[in-house]
């Protein structure tokens, strides 16, 4: 566990100090949530029903930006070989890196998401729900994003490949997260959609470490 803590702290430091960190993700997210309403005509009444959906699509796309950093740079500079011979198995390495990605990108996005969602037309009383669902969904984005980053290891234009691999995996949380907000905005309980969102995150937590570790081993050969 101490070794994993060492790795996790290193990952957080790399995420916060290097390019593709929280500022880039949050800036990109705010740009998207500003541009889409402008492109849609800027009519608040037209935006209100799709505000949750716009916010969630922007969250998903913003979460992709820094995924290439997760494994590709370690492969390029030889650190991945060192990491593979560490005290913890690669499956736990994937979890540690995904958790750091969540804290460095997912959590800051969850902080700014309520502001953007309210600007788009969601009722202010839903701000805590936006933040909570974005935080939960962000963990899923980080886990499946780590899987996509591992699958794209060593390929040319890995960043583009990550986006192609990961975006389909992001569809369920976008649907469930936006669904929870839509239900709450309509006066219904967001719990059913929220439960599906949590279930998807748990599914990702089981699959991503094993599949990601296998992809890393394959890339090292």
């Amino acid at each position: 566990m101490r070794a994993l803590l060492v790795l996790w702290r290193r990952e957080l430091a790399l995420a916060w100090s290097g390019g593709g960190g929280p500022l880039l993700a949050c800036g990109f997210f705010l740009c998207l949530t500003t541009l889409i309403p402008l492109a849609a005509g800027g009519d608040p009444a037209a935006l209100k029903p799709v505000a949750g959906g716009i916010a969630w699509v922007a969250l998903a796309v913003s979460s992709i930006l820094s995924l290439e950093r997760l494994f590709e740079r370690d492969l390029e500079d030889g650190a991945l070989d060192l990491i593979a011979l560490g005290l913890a198995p690669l499956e736990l390495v994937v979890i540690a890196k995904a958790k750091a990605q969540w804290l460095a990108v997912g959590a800051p996005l969850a902080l700014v998401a309520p502001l953007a969602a309210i600007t788009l037309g969601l009722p202010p009383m839903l701000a805590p729900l936006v933040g909570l669902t974005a935080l939960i969904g962000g963990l899923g984005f980080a886990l499946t994003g780590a899987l996509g980053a591992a699958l794209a290891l060593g390929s040319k234009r890995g960043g583009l490949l990550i986006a192609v691999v990961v975006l389909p995996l992001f569809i369920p949380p976008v649907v469930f997260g936006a669904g929870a907000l839509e239900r709450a905005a309509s006066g219904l309980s967001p719990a059913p959609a929220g439960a599906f969102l949590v279930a998807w995150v748990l599914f990702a937590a089981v699959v991503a470490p094993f599949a990601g570790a296998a992809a890393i081993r394959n890339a090292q050969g």
Partner: protein
Amino acid sequence: MLTVSSLTLSRGERILFRDLNLTLASGEAVVLTGANGAGKTSLLRAVAGFIRPDAGAIAFADADPGEARARHLHWLGHLDGLKGARRARDELAFQARWQGADADGIAAAIALLALAPLLDLEVRQLSAGQRRRLAFARLVAAPRPIWLLDEPFSPLDARWREAIGLLMRSHLDRGGAVLAAVHDPLPIAARAVDLGAGR
């Protein structure tokens, strides 16, 4: 400590070598020689578990391969795994602790490799030789019995080749072993295994 039996290794369609047998005993250094492309680095990577052999077996004396790779092997390849934007102190702490070093081990490595004046510099500010010493420090800080080294001395000057040769000698005296791919001779006595001219 390490037994390689009837190993066949290929990269893509190219077979690097067939039926290679190799043993590495406690206190022994073995150097892999051969032309570029003979498979020296690939053999080291296979022992480290990064490459799956086409045939044959790699066995460790006191542990299954997974356990051996997590606790018994040190790997120092062409690439040092250091992040240019991080301070040398942080990179050393990560690399050494990730492989099981404690604070005393890290302090000893800093002293033996004269790293103290470099610790607050960013890795990108270090010369190639200084980077190699920094990467080598984790081998000293976290004791592991088998060192896998790929051209370990290439960026080092004569003084540091000799100093790290002494560290390797000390490692062997404590019962460790070294398997190294080299073009230039090691500064310690070592048994040579020639992988040939390559194919």
